[in-house]
């Protein structure tokens, strides 16, 4: 097992270097000069332009700029945001807990509903629960996030008044956010109602962000279960007279879970993409919204640093999934 983990870690380094090059080049390949954007309609003299190019180091060869960037990363320095003039590292980690908290809630929501839905659909293959659940999953998968979020806000917040419109907690509460995880910080604050408010604020964004992974997990669970349910050992288990719960829940589900776990791991990328829209609509102060703003203002340092950090996170999650997969299926370790 240790050898397997080390082999997986060995692929990490070239991937990391590749990602650092892509993240560095990505924003520079987009048309648009940040110095010119800074000047706006007013324009800028050539002398002033040259002065700012030198100040920001954009006049140096790309290779030199990349080398500085790479050595900076190794020192834990992602540079200063071009727009806010604050360290990118600080900006990223100030916002990342919000995205992580929302993503975790979304994935838990997707798993808790998606897996049982997939099982129910598989067990009732071709019957109305199967058709109803899979049609709903298809709708969920196809739904534009932006529209879905506004619909939920108008219904539950605007018309029914059950949930808050946006944000992470009611503005009435004010306490130190040491961990950045609002559920933890609000709980630790001891302020009456703060934790409940944090939970309330999570409901709609969790549903919105979790909808697509939920649909994918439900469909994947169904197809994996159908495959497993046709296996001989399941028929044998049934023949032994085991209860349907034991057959489906223990014998079949355990084996069907392997591809489902892979799908859950791959959902991390989907969650990051979904977070961009979800965070914008729900005024959720996470890295998705921050990255979008960085791209539109050609904030080179913020975008390259943010992309790199997100890529590293996705790589780490996939590594964990691979290791988990190895635990579940010993054949993978070979």
């Amino acid at each position, binding site marked *: 097992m240790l050898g397997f983990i080390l082999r997986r870690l060995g692929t990490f380094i070239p991937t990391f270097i590749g990602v650092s090059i892509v993240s560095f080049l990505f924003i520079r390949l987009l048309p648009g000069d940040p110095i010119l954007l800074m000047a706006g309609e007013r324009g800028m003299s050539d002398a002033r332009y040259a002065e700012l190019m030198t100040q920001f180091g954009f006049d140096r060869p790309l290779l030199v700029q990349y080398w500085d960037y790479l050595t900076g990363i190794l020192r834990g320095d992602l540079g200063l945001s071009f727009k806010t003039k604050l360290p990118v590292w600080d900006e990223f980690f100030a916002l990342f807990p919000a995205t992580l908290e929302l993503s975790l809630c979304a994935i838990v929501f997707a798993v808790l509903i998606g897996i049982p839905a997939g099982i129910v659909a598989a067990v009732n293959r071709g019957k109305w629960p199967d058709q109803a659940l899979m049609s709903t999953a298809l709708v969920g998968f196809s739904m534009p996030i932006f529209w879905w979020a506004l619909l939920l806000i108008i219904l539950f917040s605007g018309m029914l008044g059950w949930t808050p419109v*946006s944000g992470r907690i009611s503005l009435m509460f004010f306490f130190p956010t040491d961990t950045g995880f609002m559920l933890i910080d609000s709980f630790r604050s001891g302020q009456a109602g703060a934790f409940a408010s944090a939970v309330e604020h999570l409901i709609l964004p969790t549903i919105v962000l979790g909808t697509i992974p939920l649909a994918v997990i439900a469909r994947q669970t169904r197809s994996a279960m159908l495959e497993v349910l046709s296996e001989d050992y399941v028929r044998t288990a049934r023949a032994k007279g085991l209860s349907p719960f034991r057959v489906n829940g223990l014998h079949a589900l355990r084996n069907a879970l392997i591809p489902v776990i892979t799908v859950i791991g791959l959902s991390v990328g989907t969650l990051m993409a979904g977070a961009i829209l979800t965070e914008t609509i729900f005024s959720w102060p996470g890295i998705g919204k921050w990255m979008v703003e960085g791209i539109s203002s050609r904030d080179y340092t913020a975008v390259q640093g943010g992309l790199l950090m997100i890529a590293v996170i996705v790589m780490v999650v996939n590594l964990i999934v691979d290791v988990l997969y190895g635990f579940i299926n010993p054949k993978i370790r070979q």
Partner: protein
Amino acid sequence: MVLKKLGVLGVAVMGLAYGSSAFAQDTLVYCSEGSPEGFDPALYTAGTTFDASSKQIYNRLVEFERGTTVIGPALAESFDVSEDGLVYTFKLRPGVKFHTTAYFTPTRDLNASDVVFSFERQRLAENPYNQVSGGTWEYFNGMSMPDLVVSVEAVDDLTVRFSLSRPEAPMIANLGMDFASIVSEEYAMAMLEAGTPEKLNQEPIGTGPFKFVAYQKDAVIRFQANEEYWGGKAEIDNLIFAITPDNSVGYQKLKAGECHVLGYPNPADIAAMQDDADVDVLEQEGLNVGYLAYNTTVAPFDNVNVRKALNMAIDKQAILDAVFQGSGKAAKNPIPPTIWSYNDAVVDDAYDPVKARAMLEAEGVENLKMQIWAMPVVRPYNPNARRMAEVMQEDFAKVGVEVEIVSYDWGEYLKLSTELDREGAVLLGWTGDNGDPDNFLAVLLGCDAVGNANRAQWCHEPFDDLIQQAKVVADQAERTQLYEQAQVIFKEQAPWATIAHSVVYKTVRNEVQNFKIDPFGGHIFYGVSLAK
């Protein structure tokens, strides 16, 4: 057991109908559109940053009266201008306190050294704060202050003298701008000594009506009324900026009572808002102009009659309907009506395609092919440049002119449009910085600006003489006359087709009292109260 507890919690949570107007009556919540870049207004150029810093936390020597472009005294009680217009002497208000906060306690009141420091850090490379927080001082540079200001000196504790390299009548208006906010030299030096000079930008200390309390990026900014404010304490005790980038969501929050003021309502929501009994919709013409600039150095656009004919071919009403959807007004002058010296007597070129075609034929212009540049971004003065260009394409086709619409990335667009031999006419616009006509007429149409912000590349001596003269005259009545004449010449010469001024909408809950639209696009909460 754990599940049971979670279940109880869940029931409790779901059972709570979300408490809407639960804020204390002395707390005003503003749904702002984005996060500030920082809290030192001299470092940045975005209105969102000014709203969170200069408009609430800081003061300037002189300030615009709320809701107007009229400049008045602020930290300076009075000022004198020397006869030659080269020396400005300001008398500071005595007893002005800097904020006392959890992170800094000032030991002295505002004095002349704070004013000197606030400008010298932007002006002098050797100032220890010149490079702090990557300082590029864009507004200070953009307003040509490095060339204009020769020195800033403290004459005594409460007297500051600015010496200029040339007479510049808009100087006072420049000093009312956000970049001219006065910061505490004592605080800056304390932070420098502590090795954290960037705190000046992150934990601001000013003299303004509100003190900074806390900021959570992309979530919330909290301010508290400054009890010792020299102008008297603000009527609201707490001010909260709830950062809400999506304006449709902002409207839902306004309806739910989660915020009191929405800065940028969607034009599509305005009709519904006007029918909403809980919400007041305020409107005012914006301090901007959208235009189509011909390149007046390239044939046939170097011919004034061709330019006039094309202006007459444009159906502005169709543009207002198709592009602005009710949130724009036709422009006839290069400055908006909210600026003093606006010449209402100027008559716009009437929409007359038949006459326009005849004029073009008379000038020997046939089968003309031209480009119209459409901006790739949304701006207040032009919410949809591509659509605007399409309407013009149809209009020009009616007079026999074939239009090709082109566009570039925004940075490239701004750069390429300044080139002297540029092909085609450019859609662009301008939002005023300081309410002075010079900020439009000289910046966008002066001979000095050719090859830069003067996209028409138009250098017309009679016009330029008037605006240069108006720069050095101190008397506003005299300046008004000069600018009025300049607008007449502009209309005769038609370097641009003036298209529209946007209409700015603000929505407030009806318990909000005395909120005024800032012509500069800012949001000022000093003077605003909430009905009990």
